[in-house]
């Protein structure tokens, strides 16, 4: 994703920056993690180019955090209580309850509409979602969510679903939280993005030498945080010959279980070697911690499965402290599996300190790892992420198209778009001199918003495009949803026909037939043909003279379409399917190079049987290979299961799975659903073993997720995918997979796959092509090219 080089523009007026409203269910009079978060997000949004209005939950009693914010240009602080915005009966030192906050935010937005609302807190987010005013504008940061399935109730799920539907983005602190949310609330899929912790730079710390080893802990005192056990460390270390003292900073002592608070306070104040500093300002906390040698973040194992990353670990790292903490997958991803200071018990903690004290290189390595990790969570990095999210949420406005007779018009129109479409092979390309002569004059788009209608019975393949079109300034979008392939409300369709400047028919079926026969003069009509339509009667019923462009998803199908229909060559263009590369680009789970994947196995032409052949061949070499299938099962499609040949084919596959010892426990059928991005993390190879496909999106999605594609030579495959991924038969495919894995080259291939799909089929690229077609700027298609020349460029 390219960085914005300009301020994100508001959808309402290209002349002004995006207005961001920020609210957190946090009290900025308490300097804790959530307060630091709120302040950091305000700063990051400002760095990303937004004008920020920050609404405070509580009256200001101490301005340590608010005063620096108020002084920033482009940041406005709103104090509802001081400004009299809160109802008198609801005033409280604890701040606004959620429903009052929702009303206050609505009022502020009424005064001056904002483009987005960043909100932290599940309860206030639910209130806002329920009220509906901010629907589609919420950027919701959820931390107080259930951490496991066991904590998830139906009520919570419904609430999260409501929040997700009202949100433009769900801002997730960690990848773990994002994957979990996507798998429990499908509505979060496609809109969950990462906003990791932001670690403000620490204040300057003066390090002085000291004769004893200093350990430091900052935070709450609670059983699961092992703070009582920590007080035993100085004595334990002394017994091991290491003089040490433990500095404890904080004043929140948990009351449960009974007796704990008394015991904890006694340990804090009465244990030799333990120095309790009580509650301190953030600056003083950092200063004290910076003067120590080790940071402690060792906790009870019950917290190992937390979906959140402790900001404390990063703050220690920013101070240059090595941290002693639990070994968890999250920490291993942060610091490395060979990080030397993991601990699972008090004894481990003491041993880690002893070892790192005895060997300075161990301490140095640990400190370097922690400091390096902390740098990845900087304000600049947060601002960069937010810019990318802003760019997607607020795309550049559509501009009127001048009469174009030369390639220069196309080049000008492309300025500011992602410039990599020129590498998209046989798809519509921009600004190539060789094609200049083919550019035709197109009607000038009026200065008024371009009215675009999308019609069809199944729009699932356009969701990313539709989302973009809804956000593009200067464009209005309406949908004509047909009830079924051949059933619609004709009056509604006529109304849409009368309203729209441009109509895009999704599927070259009855919807295209109808609109071609009812096209309004001056209107632009586009038809998107997938595959199956070509083998039915509808293309021959379409009035092609009324159609301005037929969009095919691959060069192969564009050629087939021309051959079968005889339609004018210049009317049949190729725009590939889109892949949301940013959403799918996630780290792989360990062992994924041994896991094959298939997305969609029905109907039988997808050739599950051949995929089983590949798997069997691999498992003869290495039993670690498995196949994950994400699909509905064939009997869930009545129109498939009632066909004898389909039933017979699938039954044979499932019987084979039951009887072949080579495939025992080797195939898992995962449920169909939108959580493809999380699912692909476990998959290292995506197979395409079909007899025939128009595009086959699954391998491309897999590539975006770092899964190497493996395809059989169905017709046209080499016009879409790099021939290096195409194999002659299942045995050859298996041999290639094994060769790459055994040769240690899987990671390299994975990286290449990611690069290729990002270059060719990224959502931004396809959106730009579609927009060009809608506005009539697309030049005529180039001459058909050899199928030997791939659309996705081969690696150089």
């Amino acid at each position, binding site marked *: 994703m390219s960085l914005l080089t300009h301020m994100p523009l508001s959808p309402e007026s290209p002349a002004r920056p995006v207005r961001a409203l920020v609210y957190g269910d946090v009290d900025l009079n308490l300097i804790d993690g959530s307060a630091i978060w709120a302040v950091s997000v305000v700063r990051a949004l400002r760095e990303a180019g937004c004008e920020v209005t920050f609404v405070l939950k509580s009256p200001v009693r101490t301005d340590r955090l608010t005063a620096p914010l108020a002084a920033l240009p482009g940041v406005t602080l709103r104090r509802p209580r001081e400004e009299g915005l809160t109802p008198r009966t609801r005033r409280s030192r604890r701040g606004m309850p959620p429903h009052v906050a929702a009303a206050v935010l609505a009022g502020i937005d009424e005064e001056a509409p904002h483009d987005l609302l960043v909100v932290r807190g599940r309860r206030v987010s639910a209130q806002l979602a329920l009220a509906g005013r901010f629907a589609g504008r919420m950027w919701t940061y959820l931390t107080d969510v259930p951490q496991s399935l*066991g904590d998830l109730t139906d009520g919570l799920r419904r609430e999260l679903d409501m929040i997700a539907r009202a949100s433009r983005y769900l801002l997730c602190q960690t990848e773990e939280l994002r994957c979990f949310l996507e798998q429990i609330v499908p509505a979060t899929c496609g809109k969950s993005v990462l906003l990791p912790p932001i670690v403000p730079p620490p204040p300057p710390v003066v390090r002085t030498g000291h004769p004893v080893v200093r350990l430091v802990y900052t935070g709450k005192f609670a059983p699961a945080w092992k703070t009582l056990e920590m007080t035993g460390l100085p004595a334990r270390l002394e017994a091991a010959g290491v003089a040490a003292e433990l500095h404890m900073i904080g004043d929140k002592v948990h009351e449960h279980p009974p007796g704990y608070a008394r015991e904890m306070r006694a340990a804090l104040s009465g244990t030799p070697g333990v120095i309790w500093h009580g509650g301190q300002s953030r600056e003083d906390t950092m200063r004290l911690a910076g003067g120590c040698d080790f940071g402690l973040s060792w906790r009870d194992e019950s917290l190992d*499965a937390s979906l959140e990353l402790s900001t404390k670990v990063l703050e220690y790292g920013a101070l240059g402290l090595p941290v002693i903490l639990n*070994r968890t997958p999250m920490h291993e991803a942060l610091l490395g599996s060979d990080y030397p200071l993991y601990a699972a018990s008090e004894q481990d903690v003491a041993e880690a300190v002893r070892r790192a004290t005895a060997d300075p290189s161990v301490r140095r390595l640990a400190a370097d790892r922690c400091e390096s990790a902390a740098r990845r969570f900087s304000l600049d990095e947060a601002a960069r992420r937010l810019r990318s999210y802003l760019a997607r949420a607020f795309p550049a406005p559509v501009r009127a198209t001048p009469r174009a007779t030369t390639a220069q018009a196309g080049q000008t129109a492309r300025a500011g778009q992602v410039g990599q479409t020129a590498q998209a092979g046989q798809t519509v390309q921009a600004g190539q001199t060789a094609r200049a002569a083919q550019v035709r004059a197109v009607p000038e788009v009026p200065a008024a918003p371009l009215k675009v209608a999308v019609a069809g019975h199944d729009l699932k393949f356009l969701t990313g495009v539709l989302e973009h079109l809804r956000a593009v300034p200067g464009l209005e979008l309406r949908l004509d949803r047909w009830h079924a392939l051949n059933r619609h409300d004709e009056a509604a369709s006529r109304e849409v026909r009368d309203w729209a400047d441009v109509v895009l028919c999704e599927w070259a079926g009855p919807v295209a037939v109808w609109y071609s026969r009812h096209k309004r003069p001056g209107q632009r009509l586009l038809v998107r043909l997938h595959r199956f339509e070509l083998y039915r009667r509808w293309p021959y019923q379409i009035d092609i003279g009324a159609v301005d462009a037929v969009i095919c998803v691959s060069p192969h199908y564009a050629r087939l379409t021309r051959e079968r229909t005889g339609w004018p060559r210049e009317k049949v263009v190729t725009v590939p399917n889109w892949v949301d590369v940013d959403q799918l680009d996630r780290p792989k*789970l360990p062992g994924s190079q041994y*896991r094959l994947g298939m997305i969609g196995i029905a109907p039988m032409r997808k050739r599950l049987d051949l995929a089983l052949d590949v798997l069997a061949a691999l498992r003869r070499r290495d039993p670690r290979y498995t196949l994950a299938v994400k699909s509905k099962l064939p009997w869930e499609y*009545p129109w498939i299961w009632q066909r004898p040949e389909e039933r017979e084919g699938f039954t044979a596959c499932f019987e084979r799975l039951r009887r072949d010892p080579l495939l025992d*426990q080797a195939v898992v*059928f*995962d449920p169909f659903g939108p959580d493809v991005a999380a699912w692909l993390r476990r998959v290292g190879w995506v197979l395409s073993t079909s007899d025939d496909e128009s595009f086959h999106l699954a391998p491309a999605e897999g590539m975006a997720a770092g899964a190497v594609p493996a395809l059989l030579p169905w017709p046209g495959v080499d016009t879409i995918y790099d021939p290096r991924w195409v194999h002659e038969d299942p045995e050859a495919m298996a041999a290639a997979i094994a060769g790459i894995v055994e040769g240690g080259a899987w990671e390299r291939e994975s990286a290449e796959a990611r690069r290729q799909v990002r270059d060719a089929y990224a959502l931004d690229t396809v959106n730009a092509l579609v927009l060009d077609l809608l506005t009539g700027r697309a030049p005529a298609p180039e001459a058909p090219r050899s199928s030997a020349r791939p659309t996705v460029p081969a690696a150089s």
Partner: protein
Amino acid sequence: MKPDPELVRLRRALRERDGRIQELAARLAAVEGSVTLRVGQTLVGAARRPGRRMVRLPRDLYRLWRTSARTDVRETSERPAPAPSQTEAPGTVPSPFLGLTEEERLLVAPRDRLVIAGVLTPEAVAALEPYAHVVPLTPHAAELVGDLRDPDLVLIQAAACTGHGPWAHLGDPAATDRERRIREVIASSQIRGRPVVLWRDAPAAPGLRRLPVDEVVEGDLGVPLHLYNPIALDPARSRVPLVHTAGPRPPEVPGPVAHAVRHEPARFREHAVAVVDTEAAALRALACGARVVSTVPVPGAAHAPDAASLAAETAAAVGAGPRTEEEQREVTRRLFAEHALPVRLAALLSRLGLDAGPLASRRVSVLVTPAAGDPRTLAAELRAQTLAPAEIVLPAELGATASELPGVPVRLAPGGGWEGLVAAAREPYVVRWTPGRGPHALADLLCALECSGADAIGIRPPEAAGNGGTANGALAGEGLAAAGIRAAGLGDAGARGGTRGPAAGWAFGAEAGLEPVLMRRDLAAVLDPAAWARGGARLLAIPGG
């Protein structure tokens, strides 16, 4: 004033009618809320609108049944007492299992072995198979298979949740879909009163700990001696240490080493020295005759918690050479008694209140012949056994000895002679008891049986103990099938016909002079090892001791 009879009659009729109305109202409410009605509605609905509804029918019915079961469990305390007319026959408990009652299930699904279903590695399945009927679950069919097979125990093995199997990454938020599946299995099992155990034998995703299991078992479930054992070890096996790694940082051993990650019996058997970092690997290496150096404390292994001691202990182990036969016997005895899989599994089942007898394979009938010597000595020897027999069968003339054998069932053979003793025995394996056996005799025999799965165990005469006294010394030059090894990856050549020359250590084969001591009861009638071998029976020879 005397009541009007007609009025009395009418009032009685009214009361009866009110009562009837209340009864009918209660029954109507029960019917409307019943699963039966909903099943009927589902069936009718599917018939009226075939297509998608028909396809969903089996699943809908299944879900109705499951919902009914869970509702029954949750709402039992809240449910009002049924009207008398709805009371079921006393003693009949409705069961969620396919609609059958508990009593009907007993008729429909007899079983002779424990049924364990679960999330298991192939190695664990192989290890458990002699002791239970094992049903590995796959995520997409877990709940269905669990309900159909109705396991006695559900086992979730942490090692199966890492790596590459069908449940890989269970417990990681990226595999929440898998966690949803296993939670359904857990809920279903617990509804039926079947325990669910998390077996934490390997580092796995921390989310596993949040599963609502009934018990957590830490560490190894015990070494499966039928897979890892000292049968026919090659005395010339490599002295290059085998470093077996499970943790994130392998032990650093100086000098040439071999590496292994997975538990493979063949690899362990190839090396006389093993350096390990887990209890599981240590036990398996010990069982395969290795001298073991371990970074974690394990009985029988040299503990080396740091680099310096690791180097020193490894050098010492290499220098010491292979274990003697006596040393290995001690190691194997301890493993058999304390760390073998059936022992630990039996302890777990006992804690869970299950009576499934994984130690049933260790039950043997001791047959005492009249020539067994002085009865008092005989009794003392039997009482001293570290592994008690399941029963002792005495000839009638030694009946008085029974009083000297408290705590052990004693049976008297009514008929005379060896055949009579065999006929009276109840256990599948019998031991021919002769005097002069040490306190570990039965344990050693049953240990050899557990390791080999042989049909008979014979004791090699002391003068044929092999070459130079080294443990499991050189096999006879024929060296081959007598090494009928049952460990995974190595073929079991089985017994061969005819007698063979003397071998050493544990080895398959009918050797000359072999004294059959433990045998299958059906073989015991005729004590002829050569005949057994010709009939295909497998005979394991062990040294006397």
